[in-house]
């Protein structure tokens, strides 16, 4: 996007407001330690974010004005109705986002170099100090982890992940490595693994394609290009067949509209269409796939609500015609992922933990990919459904450092 002069002036305005807010409306004032252009970030609609504050002392009187990863939303200084409601809305959104994640980050975070030093210490000498690794990495968000990896490589000339790989093993290692990755790279890795194995991993591809936001999916595809020198779509096309490919390829290629607008007339028409196709058992019909793979999530939600109101059943009930049919199972999971992902993840966790011999792969994957997103809601759903807190189930089914890190990521606080 071209950054013309008018846009630049607007960016400057917001940055100045934010700095003024930090200097004059805080007691004691917050001084940004690194006032350079690399800490001014532009979000999608040229919304300005200021980063690099996470090693600052936040004032006790305004704890919610600094987001946990240190970003301050540019706030105009004029106190009028408009700016107040805008600020309230921003604060509300921040609270909502944080409320769903289980990851906890300390309010005063050590500096990056301190973290790197500690991690280095954890590897040195005889054996590994897993507890230290858990304490540090288990309480850092994606931005912080990326910075740690970068600084570690610059300081010690080695990729942190390679160092971890050498020192750790088994489920704990897999969890640490997967957790340490940036979310986009993690999704790319999971997707790549899924294209190599056989049918059961169609689910992972669908999960990534449907539970990520449009931009998160896009970043995953970009990370895939960088890491594997090919596109995710090629690999999915090459490694899946038949109806599964018909469904999965459009799903991973999607770039859905993310607005909340809904067209009710369209919802009615498409609900009818879906009902017809399902009644004819045309489950992999082009239209069914088109609706699920291209419509926005809000629109699909409206369509499926209408489906239930008009035809009596939840669409997934109608899709249970043949319990053994794997394609139908994937279709049902797709619907779940699109409209109520927490129920989908609850089921994955339930199946992973309650089986004889935990499915660590699924457990690790869900905890890693959702800890910063909505693991709290998933845990609530888990408790509601199984009458047991998720953390208790984890304790029962796992052990050692693997268990410890899972609990930390799941927000478990030691009593």
């Amino acid at each position, binding site marked *: 996007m071209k950054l013309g002069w008018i846009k630049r002036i607007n960016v400057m305005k917001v940055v100045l407001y934010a700095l003024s807010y930090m200097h004059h409306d805080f007691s004691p004032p917050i001084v940004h330690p690194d006032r350079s252009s690399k800490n001014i970030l532009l979000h999608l609609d040229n919304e300005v974010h200021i980063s690099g504050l996470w090693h600052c002392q936040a004032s006790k009187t305004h704890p919610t004005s600094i987001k946990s990863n240190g970003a301050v939303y540019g706030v105009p200084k004029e106190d009028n109705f408009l700016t107040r409601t805008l600020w309230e809305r921003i604060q509300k959104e921040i609270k909502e986002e944080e409320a769903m994640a289980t990851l906890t980050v300390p309010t005063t975070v050590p500096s990056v170099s301190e973290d790197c030093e500690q991690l280095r210490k954890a590897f040195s000498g005889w054996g590994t100090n897993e507890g230290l690794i858990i304490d540090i990495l288990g309480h850092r968000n994606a931005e912080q982890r990326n910075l740690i990896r970068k600084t570690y490589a610059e300081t010690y000339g080695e990729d942190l992940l390679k160092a971890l790989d050498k020192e750790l093993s088994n489920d704990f290692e897999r969890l640490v490595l997967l957790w340490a990755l940036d979310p986009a790279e993690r999704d790319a890795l999971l997707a790549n693994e899924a294209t190599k194995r056989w049918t059961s991993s169609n689910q992972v591809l669908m999960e990534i394609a449907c539970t990520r936001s449009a931009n998160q999916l896009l970043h995953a595809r970009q990370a895939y290009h960088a890491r594997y020198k090919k*596109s995710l779509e090629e690999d999915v096309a090459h490694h899946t067949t038949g109806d599964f490919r018909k469904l999965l390829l*459009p799903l991973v290629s999607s770039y859905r509209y993310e607005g909340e*607008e809904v067209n009710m007339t369209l919802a009615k028409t498409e609900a009818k269409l879906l009902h017809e196709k399902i009644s004819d058992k045309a489950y992999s019909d082009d239209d069914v796939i088109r609706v699920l793979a291209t419509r926005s999530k809000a629109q699909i939600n409206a369509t499926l609500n209408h489906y239930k109101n008009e035809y009596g059943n939840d669409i997934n009930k109608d899709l249970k015609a043949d319990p053994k049919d794997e394609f139908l199972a994937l279709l049902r999971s797709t619907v779940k992922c699109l409209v109520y992902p927490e129920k989908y993840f609850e089921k994955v966790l339930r199946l992973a933990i309650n089986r004889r011999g935990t499915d660590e792969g699924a457990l690790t994957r869900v905890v890693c990919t959702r800890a910063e997103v909505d693991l709290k809601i998933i845990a609530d759903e888990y408790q509601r459904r199984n009458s047991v807190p998720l953390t208790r189930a984890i304790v029962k089914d796992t052990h050692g450092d693997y268990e410890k890190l899972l609990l930390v990521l799941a927000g478990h606080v030691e009593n």
Partner: protein
Amino acid sequence: MRKGCSKFFLEDERQFERWNDSAIKSLKAEFKLFKDVVLLSLMHPWERDARLLKKALKKGPPHYNVIVEIACTRSSDQLLGARKAYHSLFDRSIEEDLASHVKGSERKLLVALVSAYRYEGPKVKEDAAKSEAKALLNAIKNNNGDHKKKAMEEDEVIWILTTRSKPHLKVVYEQFKKISAKTITEDLEVELLLKETVECLCTPQTYFTRVFDTALREDAKEDAKKALTRLVATQEDVDLKGIAAKFEDKIKERVKGAYKDVLLGVLADDRK
């Protein structure tokens, strides 16, 4: 100025100078082409592509080649930008609109083309390219006689053309030449949209040449001229220069005014 443009004015029975309708019409048409090329060049490329896509979709099947042109000649990030712009402008994704409004056999191909986010690196898999060339050949052969299903509806054809990288597809094109007497595009004479897809992806110069040629003919229609305008405004000058040079004489001969200057500007070394 009025005195100088005597051919635009006629005296009528009442000895009143009025517009010569037909002359004015051709003047308007010339200016329109110029206006179009200027407006297109001024808009942000993403917004421009989004609007072009919307218009092509609205106008229907004869204009679907515009969708193919945009989806295939833009880089991965440019195409992505167009999709983002489409969200902002029309509150929908281009995929949903295409998927719900295109009714015919070209639907799967068009939706897949517009959803592509191709790898852009040079790495190419020779073996895969060979087998994919074979697969394409089979798909074309099987569907030449059978008019119920076209090659562009074959899943195999679609995923090869819409997920593979452009360098890879160029190798597929070469491999195809080795195993068949004709090139892919020659073999696809019957399915125009599929042919243009392959052309834009594998041999874009051929496509550009054809557009220039059709537009600069004596009997060129409006759409052909619009196609040329669009190309000039949206493609990199570097890609068009060689072609425009071949048509330099025709441009000087057939085109007039400011529009001619724009077309010839493509050839100039110091442009931009």
